[in-house]
């Protein structure tokens, strides 16, 4: 079994109008090399599901997003995401704005093959006002309480970035927080992972490593070897987020051409060289709050 693909190979599994989920959280462990590959393709009109960071912003900057299903979009150190902000203020994208937990419930519901999961979250807020498609369900038990029926968010494709993988798609997320990547994988028809390291199964470390295996290889369709593939987001424990680059990226919202000329339409290897190379990136300290 060999699931190893190139960045370009992954594009063959993506179509315009698809619903794609992107793992990570804000400016943390985003599959940015795969996102850049989409930006450089003809694929468009995507519905994007994300705990958003520069993945969402970069796709917005390349006019790839038809609809965004989200709880927030932020670069963490730079709270507001300039490209997403511009797309919203220019009315370029549709949105389904949800509480972070509702978004998780939608993914979990899809992961469990359920049509919905009940929640109180959203009551009393304009999340209901602006998502009139959300329906309600009444408890069949004595309490008779009414809930929001958070619908399953089914994904055509999930894109995740992990620390380690073998050729079979056995992955390890070593950073202390796996975020909701497992649910993205379970909610998707197909999942593609980019991985810092591509190792033999033996090198994954047997029992000692297995606790870092957050979802089964049967969920993984393809593995792309992508050292520093999360740049400019962080990939704990290997590197932190590149604050200088995030600033340059953020400042490029006004005129994106300079940024695109410097960093886009490149192979992953050339991109990494353009931002200083692996030696430099892996010296970026992890964020501390």
């Amino acid at each position, binding site marked *: 079994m060999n699931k190893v693909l190139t960045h370009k190979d992954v594009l063959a599994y993506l179509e315009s109008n698809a619903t794609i989920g992107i793992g990570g959280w804000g400016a943390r462990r985003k599959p940015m090399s795969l996102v850049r590959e989409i930006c450089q393709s003809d694929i468009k009109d995507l519905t994007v599901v994300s705990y958003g960071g520069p993945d969402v912003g970069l796709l917005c900057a390349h006019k790839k997003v038809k609809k965004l299903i989200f709880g927030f*979009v932020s670069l963490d150190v730079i709270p*507001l995401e300039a490209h997403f902000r511009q797309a919203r203020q220019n009315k370029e994208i549709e949105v389904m*704005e949800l509480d972070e937990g509702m978004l998780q419930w939608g993914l979990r519901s899809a992961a469990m093959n359920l049509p919905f999961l009940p929640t109180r979250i959203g009551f*009393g*807020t*304009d999340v209901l006002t602006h998502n009139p498609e959300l329906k309600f369900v009444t408890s069949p038990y004595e309490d008779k309480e009414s809930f929001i029926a958070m619908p399953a968010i089914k994904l055509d494709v999930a894109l995740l970035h992990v620390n380690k993988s073998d050729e079979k798609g056995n992955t390890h997320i070593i950073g202390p*927080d796996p975020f909701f990547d497992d649910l993205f994988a379970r909610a998707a028809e197909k999942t593609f992972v980019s991985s810092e390291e591509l190792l033999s199964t033996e090198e994954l470390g047997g029992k000692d490593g297995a606790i870092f295996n957050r979802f089964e290889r049967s969920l993984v369709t393809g593995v792309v070897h992508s050292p520093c593939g999360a740049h400019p987001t962080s990939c704990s424990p290997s590197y932190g987020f590149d604050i200088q680059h995030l600033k340059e990226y953020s400042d490029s919202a006004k005129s994106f051409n300079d940024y695109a000329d410097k960093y886009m339409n490149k192979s992953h290897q050339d991109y990494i060289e353009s931002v200083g190379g692996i030696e430099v990136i892996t010296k970026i300290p992890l964020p501390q*709050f």
Partner: protein
Amino acid sequence: MSDSISLAEICISQASKAWQDDGEILATGIGLIPRIAAGLAKLTHNPDLMMTDGETYLISEPAPMGKRDSSADQVEGYMSYSRVFENLWGGKRHAMVTPTQIDSFGQTNISVIGNYDSPKIQLLGVRGFPGNSINHKNSVFIPNHSKKTFVEGEVDMVSGMGYKNKELSNGIFEIKRVVSNLGVFDFNGKNNCMQLLSLHPNVSVDDVIANTGFEIAIQSDSITSMPSNEELVLIREVLDPQGIRNTIFGE
């Protein structure tokens, strides 16, 4: 020591009192002043509070502001985002946040300013505010008390619910305490209206009224009590030795 107490220190001391009766729950202070305040609460009136390192671990002592050697943190537990959700859905948390807007119902907004379909300013998105507000108590710190933050009518996009829908939260919804650059408030006035509890030095009732977009009750117009010497030592030497708090009001 007491003759040079800063406004930031007054706000931290007052904000810390939000958590004093909470018992053993997760205290989350989001932003500079709320975070130092949560730490101060843990080091003074509520040592049972749980706190994170700002990333993924629960640690025994509040993490000081600024660069530190985090390998020296005494980790006592795990608090990934998944665990944060599980914890907050169970209600064992009290967060202090800084919404962009708050209204007379205690509704908060961090999503957009202006019309939702054509936003004047796109902010973060609702984040966890809907879930936080319906599942556990919250407090608010506002560094720029004005009619733009304490708005007339309702906030532009209700991200956190308010008292007018309290029954939908099974009675859980509560804004415990509001600390601004002008004074200290809660929502325990008649019909849960916001009420003034104390004024910071050199602030008048008229200043507060002129800068608030809705009617408030005046429970007291006394001057906010100053941080104790113990609190000042903890703020200055333990929680924020580099004085990062001074950036909030340019002090």
